[in-house]
């Protein structure tokens, strides 16, 4: 028996609406049984803040700062927290797979651990002592380098997550309201103590293409599949175009 093949989508940079619409379109395709299990790697241009499905945009995001800086704001279909996706300093992955694949643990926590393993192995390959830290983080010596979020719909799983390559801390503090009131040196140091990046851990500027290649291998090893470069289907493209209207609507962004 040969190695099972999954589709690999190397998507480069897109705006926030496109990124979230494509993830959901692939999930819809998986639900309908027409999209193959997929790993997608992508970045964000312009930089964006994504907030969790249950978060309030006004509570989490400084909308005025985002406008000034040209940072997109988008609500995800997944829970979890707000993330600043820096155009230069962050890489996002998404995995879509039907539950019928059978290897993903049913238990949510265990499924995070399982699906995050590709990232953990990729990071270790780069010499970074990464480990999964429940509920949904990957950390290096206690500092977060990746946050992950999952949803399940009609028998299919979508998990997406972020990998910090290098942070622009002043911008994070401007666009997110977290700790905003304490924009002190102390708050910045505390933040730096909780978060780390690939740049900090490896001591060299991460090369995006090499990082992607290494993560791809990490996921192949963790999931025991071969990732074959592919493209979105016509159906997925059409679905994504439709979904972009939802993601760009005020109604969606401000629903909480």
């Amino acid at each position, binding site marked *: 028996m040969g190695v099972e093949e999954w589709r690999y989508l190397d998507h480069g940079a897109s705006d926030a609406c496109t990124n979230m619409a494509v993830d959901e379109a692939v999930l819809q395709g998986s639900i309908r049984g027409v999209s193959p299990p997929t790993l997608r790697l992508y970045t964000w241009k312009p930089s964006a803040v994504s907030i*969790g*499905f*249950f*978060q*309030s945009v006004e*509570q989490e995001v400084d909308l005025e700062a985002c406008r000034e800086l040209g940072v997109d704001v988008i609500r995800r*279909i*997944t*829970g*979890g*927290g*707000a993330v600043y996706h820096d155009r230069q300093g962050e890489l996002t992955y998404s995995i879509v797979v039907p539950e019928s694949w059978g290897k993903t643990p049913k238990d*949510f*926590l265990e499924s995070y651990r399982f699906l995050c393993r590709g990232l953990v192995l990729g990071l270790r390959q780069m010499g970074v002592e990464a480990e999964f830290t429940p*509920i*949904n983080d990957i950390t290096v010596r206690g500092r977060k380098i990746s946050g992950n*979020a*999952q*949803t*399940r*719909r009609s028998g299919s799983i979508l998990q997406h997550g972020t990998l910090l390559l290098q942070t622009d801390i002043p911008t994070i503090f401007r666009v997110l309201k977290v700790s905003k009131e304490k924009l002190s040196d102390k708050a910045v140091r505390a933040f730096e103590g909780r978060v780390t990046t690939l740049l900090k851990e490896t001591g060299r500027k991460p090369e995006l293409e090499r990082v992607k290649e290494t993560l791809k291998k990490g996921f192949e090893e963790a999931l025991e599949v071969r990732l074959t470069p592919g493209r979105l289907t016509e159906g997925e493209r059409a679905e994504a175009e439709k979904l972009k209207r939802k993601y760009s609507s005020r109604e969606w962004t401000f629903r*909480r």
Partner: protein
Amino acid sequence: MSVCEAEYKVAGGKMIRIRLNVKEGALSSIRITGDFFMHPEEALEKLESSLRGVKVEEAEGLERHIDAFLSENHVTVLGAASRDFAAAILKALRTPA
């Protein structure tokens, strides 16, 4: 009518925020936000609806109410538990905005 708000930090790191209105001694509306996970996601709005009409003087029964809602609707929550949502709501009731 009075508006109440609270932030409640769950042990383990997630945050629950509550905004609610009280009218004639009962919850007339409630908004629960935060960075927890709830599956299926639509369940949160249903939970909010189910809390409307709960009397403030019976607020100590909130945890049981939420527990029953989650199990009846086969809802999984990660990063928070019924007692955290209940505690957050009680905190809001004590904290008029």
